[in-house]
């Protein structure tokens, strides 16, 4: 339902009625206070565990606004944020959970936390967003968008190719002093408030208050704006397309690690989420997805892992066994120096029977894990055996490894035996696999890490079985049976006639 602003009350601030605010407070205290605080100041039971931190409503700084940079949001803006939430943060979408009336009441209640809503700036002007023309992938149009992107130094923060790895990205903090990441434009689904092209347009027109993301209303000409939107839009696919199985292709020859080994091999993308169970809880893992490819030959398997990382930490050290506190304070990453980036592919230590798996947290003594691990400050890789956090040992099998970091992307390749210890990987079978990434910049080490659930490798048979023979076989069998029946029936009918 859409509530239009009363035209006559245009000059008055839209603050709702006493009753609306009171009802808003009732819902707020039950549904919102544990994150945003009873006083709206983001000091609450859950805030130490949240990054980004819940909005402090007493500041009047709202990221999502249809109003000019630095201004307050409209009631409708606040309602939209409540309705849609902020993807990939803890701020949930309340649409369908709270009624439209409740959401309206909440918006009025939130306004009471900041007195400016009741003052002369309480009725901000809306920046007009024109209707988006159809998306155009015309090379000239996108090239123009790229020029605007470069001319306005979007790359300083967002990176040369929009991967969130700009030069100043590691130093960015929000108005409350918390570290903040420039959006990765190749993962549009993680945008806080940019689900559509109009939203991207609005984001750089109005800026995001309270964050370093500026407004470009004054600097980008009207005719260039949609070119920039479409350029940003062209950097990402629509949805994450999370997969569940890596198709491992067979190769008759030796597996030589390098770029060409995985050419044309299908890539599968998996979500990475924070470890939030055991000590070392990671509430905002530096990495939120990993792309995987794999190939095999008669004795070996090679796995390529690719992920976006704002910076490459190749100094310091890391290890899955490092002891970590329950959680690090949600405060700046800069206190986290000394940890390098690292990555692991985790496999069961023996061929599982049926659906049995090691516990996904590093295994346990009943069913250990084989951890293909590399610390990116070194140039070696090894197989470790995990029986749970803190019970991880090197089992002496060395792996071949190559690693490179370029423009915000880590590429790591492992090569190891197809059969090792109790684990075999025959053709045409599914082998459980999971992944872990440590972002040294965010102080991820030991059990503080980004991890995935169990997925599968599937070793595609090297010689695909041709369907021709089985097809011919079944065709002939069925046809033969039919002819036999028809012949018998005809024979009998003829006999009966002659009889």
């Amino acid at each position, binding site marked *: 339902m859409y509530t239009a602003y009363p035209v006559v009350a245009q000059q008055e601030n839209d603050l709702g009625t006493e009753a609306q605010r009171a009802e808003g407070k009732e819902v707020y205290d039950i549904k919102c206070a544990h*994150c945003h605080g009873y006083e709206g100041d983001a000091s609450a039971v859950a805030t130490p565990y949240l990054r980004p931190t819940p909005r402090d409503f007493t500041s009047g700084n709202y990221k999502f606004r249809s109003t000019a940079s630095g201004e307050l949001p409209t009631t409708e803006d606040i309602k939209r944020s409540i309705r849609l939430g902020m993807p990939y943060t*803890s701020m949930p979408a309340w649409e369908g959970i709270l009624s439209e009336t409740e959401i309206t009441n909440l918006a009025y209640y939130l306004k009471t936390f900041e007195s400016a809503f009741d003052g002369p700036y309480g009725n901000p002007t809306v920046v007009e967003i024109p209707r988006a023309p159809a998306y155009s992938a015309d090379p000239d149009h996108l090239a123009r968008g790229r020029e605007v992107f470069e001319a306005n130094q979007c790359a300083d923060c967002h990176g040369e190719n929009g991967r969130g790895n700009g030069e100043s990205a590691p130093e960015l903090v929000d108005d409350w002093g918390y570290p903040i990441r420039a959006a990765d434009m190749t993962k549009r689904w993680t945008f806080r408030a940019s689900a559509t092209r109009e939203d991207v347009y609005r984001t750089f027109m109005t800026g995001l208050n309270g964050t370093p993301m500026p407004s470009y209303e004054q600097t980008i000409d009207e005719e260039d704006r949609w070119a920039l939107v479409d350029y940003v839009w062209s950097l990402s696919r629509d949805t994450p397309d999370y997969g569940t199985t890596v198709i491992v292709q067979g190769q008759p020859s030796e597996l030589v690690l390098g770029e060409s080994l995985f050419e044309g091999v299908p890539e599968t993308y998996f979500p990475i*989420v924070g470890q*939030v169970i055991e000590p070392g809880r990671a*509430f905002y893992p530096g990495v939120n997805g990993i792309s995987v490819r794999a190939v095999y030959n008669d004795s070996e398997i090679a796995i390529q892992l690719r992920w976006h990382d704002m910076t490459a930490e190749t100094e310091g050290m890391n290890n899955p066994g490092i002891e970590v506190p329950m959680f690090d304070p949600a405060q700046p990453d800069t206190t986290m120096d000394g940890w390098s980036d690292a990555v692991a592919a985790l496999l069961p230590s023996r061929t599982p029977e049926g*659906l049995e798996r090691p516990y*996904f947290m590093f295994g346990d003594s009943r069913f250990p894990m084989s951890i293909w691990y590399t610390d990116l400050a070194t140039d070696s890789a090894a197989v470790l055996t995990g029986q749970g956090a803190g019970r991880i040992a090197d089992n002496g099998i060395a792996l071949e490894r190559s690693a490179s970091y370029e423009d915000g992307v880590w590429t790591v390749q492992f090569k190891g035996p197809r059969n090792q210890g109790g684990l075999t990987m025959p053709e045409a079978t599914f082998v459980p696999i999971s992944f872990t990434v440590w972002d040294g910049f965010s102080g991820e080490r030991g059990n503080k890490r980004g991890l995935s659930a169990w997925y599968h490798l599937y070793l595609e048979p090297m010689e695909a079985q041709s369907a021709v023979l089985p097809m011919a076989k079944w065709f002939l069998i069925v*046809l033969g049976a039919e*002819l036999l029946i028809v012949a018998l029936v005809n024979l009998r009918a003829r006999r009966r006639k002659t009889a």
Partner: protein
Amino acid sequence: MNLFVFLAIAAAMVLIQFVVTRWVKLNRLAWMGIWWVALWAAFSYGINPPLPNSIILLFMAIITIALVAYLSADNEELKQAQDSIVRFMVARQYRVALLIVLFAIPAAVAAWTYVSMNEAPQPPSSGRTIHPPPPSSITFEGTAIDLTTANNPIRELQHTDEAAFAEHVANGRRIYFENCFYCHGDNMQGAGMFAHGYDPLPANFNDATTIAMLQESYLFWRIAKGAPGLPSESTPWSSAMPAWEDFLTQEEIWDVIIFLYEFTGFEPRAQGMPH
């Protein structure tokens, strides 16, 4: 259930019954074929979430047997059906049609062979029992707890000491937002910020088939022992539900259980009733 599909199938049947039969006389055999196809369509497309193919195959086998039995129960009808088949195979005027049918059936079988050989391979899927029977007792930090008789000790306060009860609810809320909401979500819908990383998905406590139909002692077991404590037929290790006995005390677990019910507005199933 997909009402739309059911209505479409019913409409098609009515159409055949009252309109098509004006021009074509349908004998018993044809009617059986039509019923067979209609039921197959209803099972395959009319039910949400879709039934597994193996179940549909089973249903159709039963229906085929039932239809054949129905036909053969009446000698007259069986003969009528038989005659029409025999006529089709013998009579000259059906020669072309017979040839087409003779080739169409094996061609369909061959096509099916091709399709099934080129299907993407399916990873082993878990035949998960959602609420497996709990053990009769568990040990928690060395003490045995009898799950068949255990009651939530906090529950009593609900009627005797409201202020103390409210404190336990508040404590449960704190525990929930320290430990659980990343997966089970702010609104307990199983859609926390990290839920997309897990399969099976974290339980949705707003759903009438989770905590609303469980006893508090059952929840105690699930929370204390998590996925690692599930019986082996429930594929314990593929679920991400942690075992909280290492991190929470007994009382904290009872508190968070109270909070789950307070927040969703459900009542636990009374002790002593079967699961």
